[in-house]
C-alpha cells in the first residue's frame, strides 16, 4: 500500500508544480507581448548576463533554506516568529551602517543577526517575567524593533551622504543585486542546516511534535530552541538581499504549509518544503527580471502563494478536490446502503459497513 501510493503522489506533486509554472507564465504572457517575454526568459535561464548565475543560485538557496527551517517553525506553532525576527533585522542594518558607514556585507549581516536574536530573546523574556500574552509579546517586539529601525534609517536619510541609498533594497529585496559572497554564505548556511537536521534528527523530531515529552526524555529543548532561532535569524538576514525583511516570513511559512498539505510524513515534508521554496525563489527572481517594478521579494512570495493554492486544491488526500471526492464517495456508499436494493449492499458488505460507521 505504502509503496504503491508513492508514485501517484510524486506524479501529482510534479503535476502541481508544472501547472504552477504554466499558470505563472500564462499570466506573464498575458501582461505584455509574448515574444519579448520569451526572449528575456531565455536570456534569464541561459545566464546571458554574468550576474544571473548568482541571482538564480541565490534565490534558489534562499527558498530552500527558508523552506527547510520553516517546517520546524510552522509545526512548532512559531509561524509568526519569523515575521518578528525579519522585522527586527531592520534596526541592526541601520546600526551597522551608522557604525561603519559602508554597505559592506559583513557588518550588516552581523548587526542584523544581533538585533534579530535580541528580538527572539526579548520575546522569550517578556512572556517569562511579565504577564503579557505570547501573541501580544510577539507583535510588540516586532513593531517596537521595526519602529527603532525606521527611526535609524530615517535619521540616516536626513543626515547622511547618500551612500545609504541602497538600504531600501533590504526592505523588499533585489535579487539582481545578490553578490557572489552572499551565494557562498547561503550555500554554507544551507549545508550547515541540512547537516544539523540530519545529525539531530531524532531530538528535533521529538521536540517538534511533543516538547514536553522531549524535555522529560532529556532533550535540551531550550538550547535547541535558541539554537534554531539563531539559525533562523542568520537565514533571515542572509535572505534580506533577495526577499527583504518585510516578506521573509512568508518564505518561512508558505512553502512549509504547502508541503504539509502534500504529505503527512515528516521526512517527506522536510524534502518537499525546500523544493517548493527553491522553485518559488527562482520563479520569483525570473518574474522580477521580466517585469519592471516587480521587486523580487513580493514576486517570490506570490509564486509561493500560488503553489500553496495549487496544493490546497490538488493535494492527493488533503486537497479540496480529493476531500470532496472522498465525501461524495461516502455519501454514495450511504445511499447504496439506504436504498432497499439488497443485492447492491450484499455485493459490497465491507463498504456498506464503512458507510454505516461514517
Amino acid at each position, binding site marked *: 500500500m505504502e509503496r504503491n501510493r508513492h508514485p501517484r503522489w510524486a506524479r501529482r506533486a510534479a503535476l502541481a508544480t508544472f501547472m504552477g509554472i504554466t499558470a505563472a507564465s500564462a499570466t506573464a504572457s498575458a501582461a505584455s507581448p509574448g515574444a519579448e517575454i520569451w526572449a528575456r526568459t531565455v536570456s534569464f535561464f541561459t545566464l546571458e548576463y554574468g550576474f544571473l548565475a548568482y541571482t538564480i543560485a541565490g534565490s534558489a538557496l534562499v527558498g530552500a533554506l527558508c523552506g527547510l527551517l520553516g517546517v520546524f517553525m510552522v509545526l512548532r506553532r512559531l509561524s509568526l516568529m519569523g515575521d518578528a525576527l525579519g522585522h527586527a533585522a531592520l534596526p541592526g542594518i541601520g546600526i551597522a551602517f551608522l557604525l561603519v558607514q559602508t554597505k559592506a556585507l559583513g557588518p550588516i549581516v552581523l548587526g542584523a543577526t544581533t538585533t534579530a536574536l535580541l528580538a527572539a530573546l526579548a520575546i522569550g523574556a517578556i512572556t517569562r517575567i511579565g504577564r503579557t500574552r505570547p501573541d501580544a509579546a510577539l507583535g510588540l517586539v516586532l513593531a517596537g524593533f521595526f519602529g527603532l529601525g525606521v527611526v535609524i534609517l530615517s535619521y540616516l536619510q536626513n543626515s547622511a551622504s547618500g551612500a545609504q541609498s541602497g538600504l531600501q533594497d533590504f526592505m523588499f529585496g533585489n535579487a539582481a543585486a545578490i553578490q557572489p559572497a552572499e551565494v557562498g554564505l547561503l550555500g554554507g548556511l544551507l549545508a550547515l542546516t541540512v547537516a544539523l537536521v540530519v545529525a539531530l534528527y531524532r531530538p528535533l523530531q521529538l521536540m517538534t511534535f511533543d516538547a514536553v515529552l522531549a524535555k522529560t526524555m532529556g532533550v535540551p529543548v531550550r538550547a535547541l530552541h535558541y539554537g534554531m532561532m539563531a539559525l533562523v535569524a542568520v537565514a533571515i538576514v542572509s535572505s534580506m538581499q533577495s526577499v527583504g525583511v518585510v516578506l521573509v516570513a512568508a518564505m518561512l511559512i508558505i512553502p512549509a504549509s504547502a508541503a504539509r498539505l502534500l504529505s503527512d510524513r515528516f521526512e517527506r515534508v522536510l524534502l518537499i518544503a525546500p523544493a517548493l521554496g527553491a522553485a518559488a525563489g527562482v520563479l520569483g527572481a525570473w518574474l522580477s527580471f521580466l517585469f519592471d517594478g516587480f521587486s523580487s521579494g513580493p514576486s517570490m512570495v506570490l509564486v509561493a*502563494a500560488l503553489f500553496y493554492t495549487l496544493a490546497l486544491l490538488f493535494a492527493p488526500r488533503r486537497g479540496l478536490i480529493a476531500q470532496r471526492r472522498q465525501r461524495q464517495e461516502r455519501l454514495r456508499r450511504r445511499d447504496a446502503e439506504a436504498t432497499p436494493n439488497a443485492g447492491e449492499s450484499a455485493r459490497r458488505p465491507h463498504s456498506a459497513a464503512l458507510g454505516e460507521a461514517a
Partner: protein
Amino acid sequence: MLYELFIEPWTIGDWMWRGVLVSSLVAISCAILGTFLYLKRLSLLADAMAHVALPGIVAAYLLTGSQSTPTMLLGAILAGLVTSGLIRFVERYGHARTDAAIGIVFTSLFALGILLLSTFARDAHLDLNCVLYGNVLGVADHSLILLAVVTVAIVALTVLFFRPLQLATFDPALAAAFGLPVGLIHAGLMGTLSVTTVASFEAVGAILVIAAIITPAATAHLIAKRLETMLLVAVAHGLLSAVLGMYLSIWLECSSAGAMVTTGALLYAVTLGATWARRRWRRAQRRQRLQASALPG
C-alpha cells in the same frame, strides 16, 4: 536650553500642534481598540489587518480610479473582510493552525499590494515609503477630519456600550446567554479595526500602526486590574508616547511615527522592568515576614 528643546517647537508655525494632534488622535483610537483586541487575544489579527489595508486601498484605486477617502475606506474594509474570511478558510480546509493561516494570508496579500503599487498604480499618490512608515506631519485636512471622527466615534461607542463590550470581551458565552449579539460585536470590532487602520494609515503607516494598537494595551495589562483602568492607562501610554515621540523625532530629525513607536516600546520595557522589580521586592518581603513569624516567640 530647556526652552529650545521643549518650548520652541510649539512656537514656530503650527506644525507641532498639528503633529501632536494627529498622533494623539491615532494614539487614543488605537489604544482603546487595542485593549479589546488584546483581551480577546486577537493582537496578531491587527498585524494582518494593518498589512492588508494596503492591497485594499490599491485595489480600490485601480478599480475606481479615485483616491477619495470613502473609496479608500471601502477598499480597506473589504480587504479586511476578505482577509478574515480567507484566514478562516485556510484554517479549516488547509489544516493550518491559526498563526500559520494568518501568516499565509496576510503576507501573500501584502506582497500582491506591493506589486500592484509598484506596477499598475504608479501614478497614484501613494508613496511606498509613506505607506510603510507614515508621515505625521504630511496628513491632509480631510484625513485629519476622518481621524477625529473615528476617534470620537470609538470613544463614544466604548462609553455607550461599555457593559456589553466588557461582557462580550471577557466571557462571550455568558454574553451570548444573556442575549447579547456577540457575533455582531465581534464584526463591529473588526470593522472598527479596518477603519482605524485606514484613518491612521497616512500618519503612522501600515506596519507601525500595529505598535500603536498592541503596545498601549500590553503596557496597561501589566498595571491595571480592571477594564476601566486598563483603558485609561492604555490611552495615557498612547498619549505620552505620542508627545515624547514628537520631541524625539525633532531632536533626532527622524521619522516621527518611528519615534512614537520606539518611545512606546521603551515605556513598555520600563513598565515591565518596574513591575518585575516590584514583584521580586514583594516576594522578598513576604519571605522575610514569614521567616520573622516562624521564629520562636
